[in-house]
């Protein structure tokens, strides 16, 4: 039996690491269509996991389910984050608990200023975490510092949220938000898509600087390219709603070389 599980690959980690996310036999449907068909995944603090797979395999659905997007109905299984069951939590509560989704397509919201949005989000999250509110000066200092991290144009901060931003600016804005909100678990949903090589480097540098022993990243991507910049500890291949193969970063290279077709054949064989 094929067992997609990262656990067997991390014996040395187990002794002294904190489990951040545990997904067990997760089944999800949208309307009447089953999209995820039994996902198992464990992410520990300090780890970077990459989830790869062909179009329509369920990668973004997994990200949406973790963030609590409406319409993604969990029919079976569990998602335990930091010891708490995520499934019944509202999206904002998940965010305050420390889950962050960097959107594949960040939404443009004309009329809501970027800075006001950041301020509102940060103050609600800080309050939830029992931290004192930042004063104007402290907020400005933090924003400046994080802006530099993702080389985010200061002018954009005062503009309407994502409105008229280029693809690269939107993705950088996602990482800026990530840096500001300081989540435990960050899920980057195809953050590399639509990025030129410079933007990819900047975004990756930002993420690399934010990596620590206390947080974890799940990178969802089509291409190996991103993984040259953000080196994952583990790579999982998602196909038809299941993780069909897990490995280390070498698996990504193998996928790059062979494509996904051999996996499809393999799963067909396994089903037989």
């Amino acid at each position, binding site marked *: 039996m094929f067992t997609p599980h990262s656990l067997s690959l991390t014996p040395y980690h187990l002794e002294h690491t904190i489990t951040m996310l545990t997904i067990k036999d997760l089944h999800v449907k949208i309307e009447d269509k089953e999209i995820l068909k039994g996902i198992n995944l464990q992410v520990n603090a300090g780890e970077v996991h990459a989830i790869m797979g062909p179009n329509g395999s369920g990668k973004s659905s997994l990200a949406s389910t973790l*963030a*609590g*997007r*409406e319409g993604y109905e969990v029919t079976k299984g569990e998602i335990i984050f930091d010891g708490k069951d995520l499934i019944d939590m*509202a*999206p*904002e509560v*998940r*965010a*305050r608990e420390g889950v*962050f*989704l960097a*959107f594949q397509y*960040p*939404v443009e*919201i*004309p*009329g*809501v200023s970027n800075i*006001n*949005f950041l301020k*509102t*989000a940060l103050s*609600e*999250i800080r309050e*939830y975490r029992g931290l004192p509110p930042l004063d104007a000066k402290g907020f400005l200092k933090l924003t400046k510092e994080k802006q530099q991290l993702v080389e985010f144009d200061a002018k954009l901060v005062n503009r*309407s949220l994502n409105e008229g931003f280029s693809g690269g600016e939107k993705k950088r804005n996602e990482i800026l*938000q990530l840096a500001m*909100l300081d989540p435990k678990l960050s899920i980057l949903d195809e953050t590399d898509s639509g990025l030129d090589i410079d933007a990819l480097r900047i975004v990756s540098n930002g993420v690399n600087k934010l990596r620590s022993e206390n947080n974890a990243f799940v990178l969802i991507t089509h291409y190996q390219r991103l993984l040259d910049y953000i080196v994952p500890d583990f790579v999982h291949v998602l196909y038809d709603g299941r993780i069909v193969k897990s490995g280390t970063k070498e698996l990504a290279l193998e996928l790059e070389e062979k494509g996904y077709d051999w996996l499809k054949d393999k799963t067909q064989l396994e089903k037989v």
Partner: protein
Amino acid sequence: MSTETTLPIYDLLTEIYDQQSAVPEYRQKAFNSFRSQGFPTIKNEEWKYTNVQPFLKEQYTAAVTEATVTTEDIKPFLIKGLDAHLIVLVNGKLNKSLSTFQSDVLISIEPLTEVPGYAADSISFTNNAFAALNTALTTSGLFIEVKANATINKPLHIIHYYTSDDNVFVQPRHMVCVHKNAKLDIIESVARDESKGIVWVNSVTQAYVEENAQFSQYVLQNGAANTRLVNFTEAVQHKYSLYNNFTFTFPGTELVRNTLHTRLAESATETHLYGLYIGADNQLIDNHTLVDHRKPNCLSNELYKGVLAGHAKAVFNGKVYVHQEAQKTNAFQQNNNLQLSDKASINSKPQLEIFADDVKCSHGSTVGQFNPDALFYLRSRGIEEATARALLIGAFAFDVVEKVTIPALREHIETLLNNNMENWYA
């Protein structure tokens, strides 16, 4: 009309009219027009979605009582940080002791008791029974005149304060004349105290914007539930003049009907009409506008936005009439609505009648709900759902609010918007 006689208010108004002696001809004409039309019913196309009949059922008293109002009463209705000349009207009547500004060499602000003949004749009473009634019976209001070439640096803040323990029908009448090359900004607030009577306000405002003059009128409507507002505003524009009208309606007043007519009587004028109406509870908010392009080379731009919660009902009817002579007209109109509850409703009707062939005209009308992707995006950053909704409403209203160029007024409007948010979801 036979049905009208069943309304006690109709009988009362007729009685008041009949008791007058030596009634000027223009008032006779106006009252006859009202008498033959009666109060509008939903059979009247202009009032199809706004049934005023249920709002006319109560008993009213004839005389509007003189109320003692102090500066303390006015305080809550001042706009924080606004540097303006304050003018206070109590139940439609200019109160000089509460007003901090009187006439000077540049501007004259006096009570209006009789409607000048040209002004009375300027309004068509057809399908306009309320304006006819006001013309026949008005006893008070303001006559504001800005001298030619005068720029009034501070806006006038006019507070229309209403108070009554009895049910009263108030009919103020205002005129604003901005002479050649002059400039004036007016902010009008409707203020209702906690007194128990129903205050029915049937008001008419006429504005004359002369050659190369500029007049901006900001109207804030946020009265209490026992207030009913029917306004008729007519602005007549001359060559190279600019007229801006902003109408903000907030939850509170149970019936609001704004009829706004702009007559572009000469060429090369510019007109901007902005509206933002926020309806909640059982409110009925109706905005009827007419932009009457009579001459060539005029620009009109209209943007009305509405947010409807609870059982609120809104009506938007925007008519743009481009006469054959009005070549090179640019006329744009947009009405967007955000419906927050299944029980709220909106009737939006753009109406373009174009008889010139070399014009640029556009119109658009939308009714929508929250964008679920935007809501999720905000919530996914830890923002409470109610706060996220408030941010999105603010964003929706932004297109209109950002056009307000007086910073303190803009902040005041933003505050009014935010203050009301939490109540809408209760």
